């Protein structure tokens, strides 16, 4: 399986390729060989394209109602059928991709920035700061994440933006801990000692050695984190604590259509399938990235 590790077995010098290869290039090559990961990339790429070009692709306005045409089964006119307000499901699903991807990306970026900042503070400067930050992470992690998100939205009020904030907050300790652990293990690596021994300042060590070497787990976790964030946003939407009408958020669409599951199953199937596919895409890609970037970091 993961034969990327072979280069470091024993003292055997690796076959030296004629051209210098950076770690990034090797990662890409090993990633490219992974069919499932590439499938994930394709799925995500597709949804990203749909999201970007939604106004061009969507045949209808996502909020345009045609009450005469409500709950129509998929057909040439409405590829995925219509919902109970006669809105074109295909258009709504496409616009929904915008919302889900936006929530996924931005909440994860938010948690990564804050998490990385705190994680580095804790791992690098240690002592009481580490105590404080680690406890803070422990405390946040002591709440089941979905529950914490619900609680935060309960306080802030239901809206897409608040859902996004909640999901981002819930994610902070995940990245924070990861970075902290990575920093702690890196600090014991000899090349960090080497950097100090040549007289490098802490800032330089952080910036030139620690951060670049912490990047791969963050990228992996971030990719998987987007998957989680999308599901969480959809779950909040499903509970009515996320996006509000008429926003075509997938979870909300599911919740609004669940009563038609018997007479118009497509209204439930397509938003659900969209969530699943996007999430699957990110999970596949995350798995692939992990195998490519960090073969030892399994789960």
């Amino acid at each position, binding site marked *: 399986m993961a034969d990327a590790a072979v280069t470091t077995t024993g003292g055997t010098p690796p076959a030296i390729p004629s051209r210098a290869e950076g770690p990034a290039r090797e990662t890409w090559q090993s990633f490219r060989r992974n069919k*499932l990961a590439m499938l994930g990339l394709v799925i995500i790429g597709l949804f990203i394209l749909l999201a970007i070009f939604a106004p061009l692709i969507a045949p209808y306005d996502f909020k345009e109602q045609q009450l005469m045409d409500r709950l129509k089964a998929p057909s040439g006119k409405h590829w995925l059928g219509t919902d109970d307000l006669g809105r074109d499901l295909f258009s709504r699903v496409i616009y929904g991709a915008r919302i889900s991807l936006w929530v996924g990306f931005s909440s994860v970026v938010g948690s990564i920035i804050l998490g990385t900042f705190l994680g580095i503070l804790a791992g690098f400067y240690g002592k009481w700061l580490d105590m404080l930050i680690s406890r803070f992470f*422990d405390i946040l992690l002591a*709440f089941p994440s979905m*529950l914490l998100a*619900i*609680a935060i939205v309960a306080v802030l*009020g239901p809206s897409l933006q608040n859902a996004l904030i909640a999901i981002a907050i819930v994610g902070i300790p995940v990245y924070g801990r990861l970075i902290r652990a990575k920093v702690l293990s890196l600090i014991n690596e000899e090349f960090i000692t080497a950097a100090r021994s040549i007289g490098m300042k802490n800032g330089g060590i952080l910036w030139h050695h620690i951060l670049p070497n912490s990047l791969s787990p963050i990228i992996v976790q971030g990719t998987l984190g987007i998957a989680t964030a999308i599901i969480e946003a959809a779950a909040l939407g499903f*509970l009515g604590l996320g996006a509000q009408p008429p926003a075509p958020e997938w*979870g909300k669409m599911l919740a609004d259509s669940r009563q038609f599951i018997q007479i118009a199953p497509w209204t439930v199937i397509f938003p659900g399938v969209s969530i699943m596919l996007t999430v699957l895409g990110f999970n596949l890609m995350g798995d692939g990235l992990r195998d490519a970037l960090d073969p030892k970091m399994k789960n």
Partner: protein
Amino acid sequence: MNSYVLKRIFVLIPVLVGMTLIVFSIIHAIPGDPAETILGQKATEQSKEALREQLGLDKPWLQQYFMYVGDLLKGDLGESIRTKVPIAKEITPYLAATLELTFTAMLFALIIGINAGILSAWKQNSWFDYAAMLLALIGISMPIFWLGLMEQWLFSIKLHWLPSIGRMDQRNPLETQTGLYVLDAIIQGKWDQLWIVIKHLILPSIALGTIPMAVIARMTRSSMLEVMKSDYIRTARSKGLPQFLVVYKHALKNAFIPVLTVVGLQTGSLLGGAVLTETIFAWPGVGRYLYDAISYRDYPVIQTGILIIAFIFVVINLIVDLLYAAIDRRIKYR
């Protein structure tokens, strides 16, 4: 061992303090006047004042917090604003329902997840391995609320195999002693009712247990693969042990440690997911209780509900930690 247990518990204290602090702050984070938010604008100043007093909002912040913690330590979990019933009393049946559901879901996840993981690792790169891991990947990508709806649609509405909602056929109620219906039915020896209870449990447990199952299967597999590569497995094989002993005795025990961590963490996903599952399957558990409290702005209930679930989660992870130490004697020395 005992000092290890003490140490683990000791380490939890700041976490518990932090948890209560966060939960306590919920009411303070409400924008505007909490009393007004809860009671609505038309409430008289008098009743708002009374509520503030009930919630202790009229005192200095720190004092409020100590009062809150003091009450918690005394076992006073507050009173529902909506029903005026002590939450400790009100929440018990919901808690039992949730525990039964999450326990069943975890059981399902463990049994299937671990075995699928072992088989996958054993038959690495076989079609079974590929199929199981693809399914597991789909499993972790599944929005559980959607899965629940689909299950309901297929198995209740279309096929009529299983009930779609609730815990029990209400025409045929069970006398509850423990609140855990399976246990109640067994204690009372009511086997046909036990069967009904189990049928009600199947769909929600599958919906809730799917993600943990997938995660556990993946973890078990990779952990088994890792362990199977290790030196001590080679040693065991060099002794001439039969393969099943090598796998189930030497490998599994070691591979189980990371799986255990995941099990601990996944209880969080179960307890969080309960809100969704219970909504879909009209399961009268804490998740739904909490969800309703949110729509009623019944903040004491929200606070306590969250605190209790988080507490359960923390306790489960403590148990997991202790289990570790029981399995792996090195841990206390680290």
